[in-house]
């Protein structure tokens, strides 16, 4: 009797384990399989309907272009990378500092917040030419544009984060006679970190958009410049390869921020 029960228990356990494994495999296999099917459809679709390569290149052509033009792609990758990263740092730093000012002074908040909202409502494509006129065609304009696009989400999140301290934590700080600086460094700033990281994850992908848009307006190097160049020269396979490169850059920055988040925020 007991032997049978144990046997059945073991069977159930084994089945459950199998089900978990199946689900894990499915989680990877399903999107991967879908992607392969889509790529094959694309590949045979363009062949079957005789779509010219300059309108829609086959995936195989894009892959070949990616390998053969890899050094050209990398040459243009680095400028965009620097612009995006510098913009990321500048935009987020400015947003964090302004958020700190907002939290410490209602006057500053009332003075600047409506302006920040207004700037955020201007489409980045519309404001980019203005910034290029102001800062010239060099690196500065690109960094400013990439920074601007990061700025607003971080500002809003950081203000919320700094205000997310519980009433009781502040009462505790008062009972301990903590100074404003102690409250900031030991309570407010750590409390804001989860909010900051969710903003940084948004910024990690948008700063690449900012850098590429900035390059469209005026640049002779960078992934944005390469996109414009390959479009006008009907080099569609190269265009597609550049687009993949851009998305790769976003994924890389996003992953970096996510790893940093996991290392820093353990609570």
């Amino acid at each position: 009797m007991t032997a049978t029960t144990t046997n059945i228990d073991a069977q159930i356990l084994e089945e459950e384990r199998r089900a978990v494994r199946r689900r894990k495999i499915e989680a990877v296999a399903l999107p991967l399989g879908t992607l392969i099917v889509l790529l094959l459809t694309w590949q045979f679709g363009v062949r079957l309907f005789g779509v010219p390569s300059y309108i829609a290149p086959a995936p195989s052509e894009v892959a070949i272009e990616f390998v053969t033009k890899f050094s050209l792609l990398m040459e243009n990758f680095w400028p965009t990378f620097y612009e995006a990263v510098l913009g990321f740092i500048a935009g987020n730093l400015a947003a964090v500092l302004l958020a700190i000012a907002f939290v410490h002074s209602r006057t500053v908040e009332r003075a600047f917040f409506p302006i920040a909202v207004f700037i955020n409502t201007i489409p980045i494509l519309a404001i980019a030419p203005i910034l290029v006129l102001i800062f010239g065609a060099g690196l500065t304009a690109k960094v400013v544009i990439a920074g601007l696009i990061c700025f607003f989400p971080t500002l809003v999140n950081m203000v919320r984060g700094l205000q997310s301290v519980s009433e009781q934590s502040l009462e505790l700080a008062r009972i301990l006679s903590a100074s404003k600086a102690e409250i900031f460094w030991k309570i407010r700033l750590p409390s804001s970190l989860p909010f900051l990281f969710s903003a940084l994850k948004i910024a990690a992908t948008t700063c690449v958009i900012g850098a590429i848009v900035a390059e469209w307006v005026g640049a002779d190097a960078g992934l944005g410049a390469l996109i414009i160049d390959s479009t006008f020269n009907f080099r569609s396979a190269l265009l597609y390869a550049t687009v993949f490169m851009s998305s790769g850059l976003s994924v890389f920055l996003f992953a970096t921020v996510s790893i940093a988040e996991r290392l820093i925020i353990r609570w």
Partner: protein
Amino acid sequence: MAEPMETVSNIEGKATGNRPVAASLTNAFVKFGAFTAIENLSLNIEQGSFYTILGPSGCGKSTLLRLISDLVPCASGELKVLGKTTEEARLAREFAFVFQDAALLPWRSAIQNVELPLEMGRKRGVKIPVSDKTPAELLELVGLKGREKSLPHELSGGMRQRVAIARALVCKPKLLLMDEPFGALDEMTRDHLNLQLLQIWQETGVTILFVTHSIPEAVFLGQKVLMLQANPGRLREVVDIDLPYPREIKLRDTQDFIKYTSYLRELLETC
């Protein structure tokens, strides 16, 4: 009633007698705008005693603790904590506060949370008192040996509250203010922490002011129950609980205990 119940005027007269005073209020008022939270409160808290505070919501129980701990100002009247103003007492770390939710910093481990009071306040002129127990020893005292490195989210609600108690004790306060510290815990955990708190009280000799909603908890813990009434917050009655220490859980099933709880329940209904 057979129990030695005392009126407000009695306790005032008595407390000025032999035992030293941890906190004294004379005609104290607390006002929030037009709202009077505490009206004309006069009270002496004897050093080394365990007071529990009961009363309907809005009676100013929490406000009383916040008044003593210098979180809310006294509108009029006089208030001394260990013979000092509340601000002086705060800077001397004469009192510590335990909140309803443990108010631990979630990114700090248990022991780092206990150490927090040692890291704050120097710039404001606090001379941080040296305790005879290290933070690790305090965690051991509250039964959390081995959990020093755990983050708050890895601890149960009861454990978090014990970390908060260890943190409150780290500067060796003479007065411990507790605002419904076990209100959110299940009954088993609460019983356990009640016993542990009584043990800590007897070991350290700290004066405790303990706000609660639970009549049995108030009777079980306290030497005296302060009954407050609402609208406006006033002291209704001070009830001496004449039950011997050390107290055990089964005390709650005794006739004497039940006499106190039923008396307080009736009293509470009229507050």
